[in-house]
């Protein structure tokens, strides 16, 4: 039986997201519980912790976007020019002095 690396996720205050805080080495879950508790909680700095064996974490880092899916991004919705034109048409352009 060898020691495992456990990733520790920490919630600073109730309601907040759990964030990755670091990792510890421990032979099993009982030891990992104790060690995470002490390393990330002894000063009362965490509302809650999650510990996960590193092997159970599945990283995803490469995302494919070969065909420019701009409809998924803000730059796929160029509103500025259209809005300017629509305001001028309606006479509600911000540049009009009487604001009509």
């Amino acid at each position, binding site marked *: 039986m060898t020691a495992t690396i456990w990733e520790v996720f920490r919630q600073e205050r109730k309601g907040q997201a759990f964030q990755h805080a*670091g990792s510890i080495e421990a032979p099993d879950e009982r030891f990992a519980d104790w060690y995470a508790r002490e390393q990330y909680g002894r000063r009362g700095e965490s509302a809650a912790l999650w510990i996960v064996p590193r092997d159970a974490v599945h990283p995803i*880092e490469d995302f494919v976007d070969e065909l420019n899916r701009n409809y998924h991004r803000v730059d796929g919705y160029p509103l500025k020019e259209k809005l300017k034109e629509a305001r001028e048409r309606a006479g509600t352009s911000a540049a009009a002095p009487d604001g009509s």
Partner: protein
Amino acid sequence: MEQREQEFLQYVQDGGQVEVDDWMPDEYRARLRKFIEMHANSELMGVLPEREWILRAPTLQRKLALTAKVQDEVGHAQLIYRVVEDLGKPREQCFDDLISGKSKFHNVFHYPTKTWGDVGVIAWLVDAAAIISQKALLKCSYAPYARIMKKICWEESFHILHGRDVVLTMMLGTDDQRELVQEALNRWWGPLMQFHGNPIPADEDPTYQWRIKTQANDEARQQFLDGYVPQIWELGLTVPDPELRKDEETGRWHFTEPDWDELKSVVTGHGPKTADRLDLRRQARERSAWVRQVVLADAA
């Protein structure tokens, strides 16, 4: 430098962050690991001068505070060695190199602690010098290291409070207690001035170029003097350097040039307590090897 390396250098100099599985130039990886390992070693060795005083702390509150401080340092060592391990060097190999003298630790941990005055001065001023470097490391290009620095800096701030409290209490106490503080300060000033390293300009310092360090050595020292000399003087303590003064026009502190030969000698393993402390580490490690074998299945 080949193109890919050049692009990486530009990337980190522009503030780019590097994660553990990213491609890194060999030189960056080697310098990074050495730098981080030295920090881990320093946290671990820093425990030894202070733990003797846990046992001698004169009140229950001081004992608790000092035990918590030393515990933090062990915790920092754990955090930092994990970063080194994820960069490819196992913890036990780091300990082998530390004990054999192959890898280094910071100068201040090679000196003896002689009195309770040292306890206050170390927690107040040595930790202050360290926190200045550590705050600069919050912006290190290597993200896993930068991230743990946040926790480390937060915990160090408690140490300085503790140190200051110990010192202030003594300065308000007996003549003997005040003398203990002054005497400790006299001994620690030299190592403190050497702590941030020799005044190599940032553009000649490769560790800075790669944005592993984000502050030049001399800048760190100036920051230390600016922050802490006024705190020292306001207590009626004297600094054992007749040249020490601030040039009000430039805002720069003038001081007697630290002994860079002494720094080099100490850091390469010739400090007054280097051998004793490495020996203590070696013995403790040998005595508990069986525990690691049973619990971690280490081939210790």
